[in-house]
């Protein structure tokens, strides 16, 4: 197809890798081991769901993978960059150029309109957006007629679509999504999850998503289950039903 797609990593290469990652909050008696020696890989052009009950360490894992939080021990490698060895300055650039984010809420800058929000990481890098890629992203998430709206003029679902578009716009190595549908009704959730699926299938993007929703996990290629800071199970091509089954097995 276009060069944009050709530039994506081939399936099978590893986009993100965590090696024996341990994260401890606090010290002494109050120390909490949020991640305990976690090793996991995320393949490029794959859609992975990280699942687990609250307190299992799934959000902590995501934060460590994305360079938002520092690991206590172990390594996180994005592409060929060891972000655990990066300085704050380098980390910022990694986040800007290699990572896309979709948070649960407060995803957008209220003073910027939709298209400005979408191109924000590019603007911060001082780069011109790739016009054809941007057009594809925008049409994928169906926002063409909302581009000059401010976030306050958009519905929650539309806001999340803008957030997904922003995450895609810079064509990052990996997109991290933290409960991206947590604040949405089921219809809007389905839309967003559908777009993310499309991003992986058609745009060859890599997505790592934290969720506690089996339905959301059902859109992914692979589900990773966390409990007490450790990976306890994995599942290829999950569906909502198989995920619920597994959760029952895990005693959730």
């Amino acid at each position, binding site marked *: 197809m276009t060069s944009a797609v050709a530039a994506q990593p081939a399936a099978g290469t590893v986009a993100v890798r965590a090696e024996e990652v341990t994260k401890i909050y606090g010290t002494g008696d109050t120390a909490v081991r949020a991640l305990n020696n976690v090793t996991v890989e995320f393949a490029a052009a794959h859609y992975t769901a990280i699942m687990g009950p609250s307190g299992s360490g799934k959000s902590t894992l995501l934060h460590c993978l994305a360079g938002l939080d520092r690991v206590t021990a172990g390594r996180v490698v994005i592409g060929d960059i060891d972000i655990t060895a990066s300085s704050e300055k380098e980390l910022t650039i990694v986040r800007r150029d290699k990572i896309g984010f979709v948070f649960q809420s407060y995803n957008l800058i209220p003073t910027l309109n939709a298209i400005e929000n979408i191109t*924000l990481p590019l603007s911060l890098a001082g780069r011109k957006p790739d016009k054809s890629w941007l057009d594809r992203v925008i049409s994928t998430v169906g926002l063409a007629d909302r581009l000059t709206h401010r976030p306050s003029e958009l519905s929650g679902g539309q806001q999340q679509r803008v957030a997904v578009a922003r995450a895609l716009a810079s064509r990052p190595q990996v997109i991290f999504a933290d409960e991206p549908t947590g604040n949405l009704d089921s219809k809007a959730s389905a839309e967003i999850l559908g777009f993310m699926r499309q991003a992986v299938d058609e745009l060859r993007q890599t997505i790592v998503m934290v969720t506690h929703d089996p339905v959301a996990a059902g859109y992914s290629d692979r589900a990773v289950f966390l409990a007490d800071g450790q990976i306890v199970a994995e599942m290829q091509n999950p569906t909502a039903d198989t995920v619920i089954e597994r959760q029952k097995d895990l005693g959730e």
Partner: protein
Amino acid sequence: MARFTIKGLLAHKLRFALTALAVMLGVAFMSGTMVLTDTISRTFDNLFADVNRGTDAYVRSRQSLSSGFGGPARRQRGRVPASLVPEIQSVDGAEAAQGNLGFYAQLVDKKGDAIGSPGQGAPTFGFNWVPNPKLEPYRIQPGGHPPQEPDDVVIDAASAKDAGFKVGDQVDILTQAPPHRYQIVGIAKFGDADSAAGSTAALFTTPTAQVITGAGDQFNSISVVAKGGVSQETLKTRITKKLNDKTYQVLTGAEITKENQTDIQNALSFFNIAMVIFALIALFVGSFIIFNTFSIVVAQRVREMALLRAIGASGRQVMGSVLTEAVLVGLFASLVGLGAGIVLSNALKALINAFGFDIPAGGTVVSAQTVIVALLVGSGVTILSAIVPARKASRVPPVAAMRDVATEGRPHSWRRVLIGFGITGLGVLSLFAGLFGSAGIQFVGLGALIVFIGVFVLGPVIARPLSDAIGWPAARLRGITGTLARDNAMRNPRRTSATAAALMIGVALVGFITIFAASTKRSIDVQVDRAFKADYVISTGGFGGGGFGGFSPMLADDVAKLPQVGASSPLRFNEAEFDGSQKFFTALQPQSANDLFDLKVEDGRVADLGQPATLAVSRAVADDHNWRIGSRVPVGFPNGTTDLTVRMIYGSGTKEGLSDYAISIATYNEHYTNQLDQQEYVKLAPGVSPAEGRRALDRVLKAYPNAELQDRTEFKAAQAAQINQLLGLIYALLFLAVVIALIGIANTLALSIYERTRELGLLRAVGMSRRQLRSTVRWESVIIALLGTFLGLAIGLFFGWAVVEALKDEGITEFAPPGGQLLLVVIIGGIAGVIAAIGPARRAAKLDVLRAVTHE
């Protein structure tokens, strides 16, 4: 509820500190001013108490002319005959009576320079030495003796130290008499001090003093010591009875001391009022910051307050909680401010001295009044500024606890526009009533105040479009960081405008004073070019007009004798009562006036002023009073009222840079004891080159180190320099208002950043670098600062124009806003924004990204 408030305060120490700081600085400045003026007053009170310590009665001429202008004790009066002294001495109960003479005497150091700062510093006195130690406050130090020979002089210890004079040295002294060299026979201390409040003193024998002053057998006043057991009142009554002459006035020692103290108090009151005004400006600016801080804090705590309401707190209790916070902040800030003010008083004194206004001050005086006023004003301003936000807090509905916090300001309402324009219009009316009507100077200040408030009310309406325009270049040049900065500045126009308003006030005043000063300088330039035909002006430098000091008429004689000089005239400025109202006039040499000034004689002849009891008036004044050639005008002089006849009417009055009233030097000499020339105007003879003329004049001036020779250009520059000196002082005093405004910007930014924690976290998460984040905050700050600067400049321009327009008749004829300097103000305004952003930007950049994005 109280405990809740205090806990809230402690939880937000920075906010508390910044808000308090704004009040603190204002209070510190005000209390510093009060302490300083109290200290100065006390110093002078003590000084006069010392001077008059031994005086039990005081006799002088009743007739006097008080002065509305100028330095301390500018009360001019006639003299009393020396023959009164033995007469008073013979009064029952009088132990001793001594005649006093006080006059201008400028000591010259060994290098030939005048000691002290002539024309600006403390006065340089000459006195006759009074042999009675009870009446002579100066004490001669061991190794010296009182003046005995005509050429003997005793000088004060401070001057002696300053110039390295010892007993036996010779010293040149400039007085009203020709310059003369005297023999130092003693060094004297004023009580225990080296000098009397910084003034210099030269003490001569009485006959010498009488020769110098041309007083002949007269004295300025007579001091009397009572015999033991005779009260001051008794002595006064007896002397009054004995003299039995209404021409003389007899006072007790206590009365003359009180009068001296009151005179100096009045002379200083102008200074006091000016300083207090600057302090009030600072507090006024501070009140905007307090208002803004409390408004933002209330907005940010809406949920918390709604929760309080939901669990049963009344609206009144919520309001009370905000006001309690204001009381605590106000009291704390006032107390600290008061303490700082006491320290600051010394710095203020140093500042004023640094600008060449030498003021004496002894030990620091902290009066109860200072403490009470500082605490009341500081707390009062804080509480008043917090009332509106507190009322808003009381109206928070409990249901707001369940809603998201809405911090976006409401769009502007037409009501606001109407009210804003109404208030501004009212302010302009008041301003005009004060400037052009007869409402008085208070209305000018009041009008300015109301204009500020009016523009403040309009602020939220104009802030958004103005920020948009001001931020446009930033958005264009700085890309996304500039765009975000501009959008942030625009997102809450009410907050932005309230923050900018504080700076607006400072900039408006700076702009106004800059424009006014430039207009004054331009007016002087134009007038010098138009009205002065002279080639040179000789003056004493400093604020010569009407001030203390000048030079001997001998200088004019010497200059006139030079073959290189074509025409010359001394000039004296003073006040007299013309037809009942006190006015400034000029005394000059009628023969040469036409060659030196473009008088535009319309009626009569200048030379006719040479006749006794004559005067000249400007066309404007003549028309006002319906005076013609030959009209007789009653003129009140220090030695009584005399009728003068109008002999000339001329076109160049005050408005044209000259004076509305003029008399001859000879007429002047008949009515004033101080006969120093303040300026000397010189026109060179035809064919004499400037270099040649200057050489000749310089030779004459060698004997007068206090005289300065200036050609027109130098004269204009010297006038400008004097204005600049005053301007510098005013800038320094306004600087505080600007600093407080900067604190306000920093405070608003800090609060806004706190509010936007999530947003900033998101920006950082998606790849904004710390540098970019700092840049965004910085540009937002610059946009707010420039908004304040532009609004301020607009108001300043208007004030400047109005004041210049109002002073047209006083000779400020040119409205000349200086483009370069105003541009500089804009640049400084922008830099100020950068400075204000340093702290908040750093705080924003330090933000923990993870905590920001997971912040609840």
